[in-house]
């Protein structure tokens, strides 16, 4: 009973920050609370939300994935060239396969060889980025078909298509992680890998599948990204790694593993995007951007801690 109350308040804390932010921004900037700007923010947040899901799952299994940005770049660059030269469908399939492959390699390095997730994905970060550079040779691929561009920049009734796609992915992932045995096993693996293994769960397979899923999510984000940007290049996505860690942390998934989850991360990613949007609207120097994100993370931590102490 009391436990539930704490949980409610903890969830509420993030929500409170979001509400305060919304109110403050709409008071400060007349341009903020308009339909186009909200659609704009949601569109911008969607890609961050997708990659942050991957990061969150990795963190739930007590890992981390530093290669997200580079895997995103590699898969989308190769996909882009195929989309331009062959067909859209083939490009999409190959892009997703590359993401899946990179993610699986991460998972295999972590479980079968025993590398820490940090090093395995740090190495993969260098490799995938390097391969993307080699593949592109410093050039860009520009200008896609209308059909392909629809996925990233189309609109349905003024709402970006991206928003619907993100909702779809969110529903799938929420079902997968909260409602299935597979999901429960992911959490179990994160909170106590030895006990979970003893209970008969193939934890290696869990970790590999989570990192494979990560790679897949990165590839999906990459495809939507180039579709939105109408161009592909090797240097895209460098900020995604740190931003997705920040979104996960603001959302309230701790690094201890076995806690948190994708539903919280949505909130984190939207708060992050709102902050940047708000700063742009208010013309606050972008130098303050990283500090603002830092302050908000610390603030949410303070609220969480005080509410915990207050209740216990």
């Amino acid at each position, binding site marked *: 009973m009391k436990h539930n109350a704490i949980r409610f308040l903890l969830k509420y804390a993030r929500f409170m920050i979001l509400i305060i932010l919304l109110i403050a921004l709409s008071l400060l900037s007349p341009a903020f609370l308009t339909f186009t700007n909200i659609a704009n923010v949601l569109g911008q947040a969607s890609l961050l939300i997708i990659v942050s899901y991957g990061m969150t799952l990795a963190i739930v299994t007590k890992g981390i994935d530093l290669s997200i940005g580079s895997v995103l770049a590699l898969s989308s660059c190769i996909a882009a060239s195929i989309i331009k030269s062959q067909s859209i469908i083939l490009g999409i399939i190959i892009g997703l396969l590359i993401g899946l492959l990179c993610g699986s390699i991460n998972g295999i390095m972590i479980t079968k060889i025993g590398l820490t997730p940090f090093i395995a994905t740090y190495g993969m970060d260098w490799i995938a980025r390097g391969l993307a550079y080699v593949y592109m040779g410093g050039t860009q691929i*520009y200008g896609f078909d209308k059909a392909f561009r629809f996925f990233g920049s189309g609109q349905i009734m003024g709402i970006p298509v991206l928003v619907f796609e993100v909702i779809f992915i969110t529903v799938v992932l929420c079902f997968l992680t909260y409602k299935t045995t597979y999901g429960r096993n992911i959490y179990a693996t994160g909170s106590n890998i030895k006990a979970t293994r003893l209970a008969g769960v193939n934890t290696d397979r869990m970790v590999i599948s989570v990192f494979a899923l990560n790679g897949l999510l990165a590839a999906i984000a990459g495809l939507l990204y180039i579709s*939105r940007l109408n*161009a592909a290049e090797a240097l895209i996505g460098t900020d995604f790694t740190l931003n997705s860690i920040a979104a996960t942390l603001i959302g309230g998934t701790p690094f201890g593993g076995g806690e948190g989850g994708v539903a919280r991360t949505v909130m984190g990613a939207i708060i992050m995007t709102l902050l940047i949007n708000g700063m742009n609207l208010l013309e606050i120097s972008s130098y303050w951007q990283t500090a603002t994100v830092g302050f908000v993370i610390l603030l949410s931590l303070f609220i969480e801690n005080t509410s915990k102490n207050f209740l216990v």
Partner: protein
Amino acid sequence: MKKILTLVLALCLVILAGCGGGSQNSQPTQETSQEETNSYKITLIVKNLVNPMWLAVKEGAEAAAKEYGVELTVLAPLKADNNEEQIRQVEDAITKQADAIVLIPADSQGIIPAVEKANQAGIPVINVNTKVGGGVTETFVAVENYDAASKVAEAVAEKLGQKGKVIILEGKAGAQSAIDLKQGAVDTFAKYEGIEIVASQTANWNRAEAMQVTQNLLQAHPDVNAIFASNDEMAMGAVEAVDQAGLTGKIIIAGLDANQDALEAIKEGKMTLTCDKRGFEQGYVGVEAAVKVLNNEPVDDRIVIDTTIVDESNVDEFLK
């Protein structure tokens, strides 16, 4: 067991670096295929190799190297525009006893210690594109970013009829060229009373970020008339944002570098103008000047490379 492991690792490394070594070997042979057994060794250090601009410089330098039978090594920081890595690369070039260094510094001030070291080692330094703040350089192949930005800003002001609201998209905070480009634009726009800079934000040279920043700024300033982007990558991001807002043609978008896709966008009427900084010539002239210095031929202190404004009237001449 341990020995076997060591052996396996050693083998892997040798094989790995072997592939790397292979590609390295192929480079000089390609470039020195022109003969000349006693060729000069020249190292070209650029800001990065992810922007088409510097790729063009590299291609120009390689063409000159082929022409003059020079052994050319091209280096760039792994972290784009990283001063410290450039210093290391100058140090490495000194150690390798390069005959000359052609240098495009990412940071005018920060690179000085490296230039001084090259001076001490008696290796001539040819400065290209961004001016080195100190030390001795043989010549400066000048495409001053400040001047180029002024030129673009002037063209924008012209197209605006000398009045309107302008957004500036800056390069990476703290980078030398970003500071120069912004200053050039700000100083030029300040000359026109009717022109107001309503916002100036960084988009880190980056297309995706430029798109996001532009989308946000368009919300705050729906009445903006022109966007000045400090490079074409960011200009292309702005093009996408403006396009998706349905404002194509209503907002003047200017960039610099004359990248291929920017030229195509100008041709399609999505972008207004850019500035050809002639990267190929910069690289070519840089290596050529190095060869002249090594042959004890005279070179000017300053070799100016003309920049050209490219808009719809002359874009066909530039499109490959």
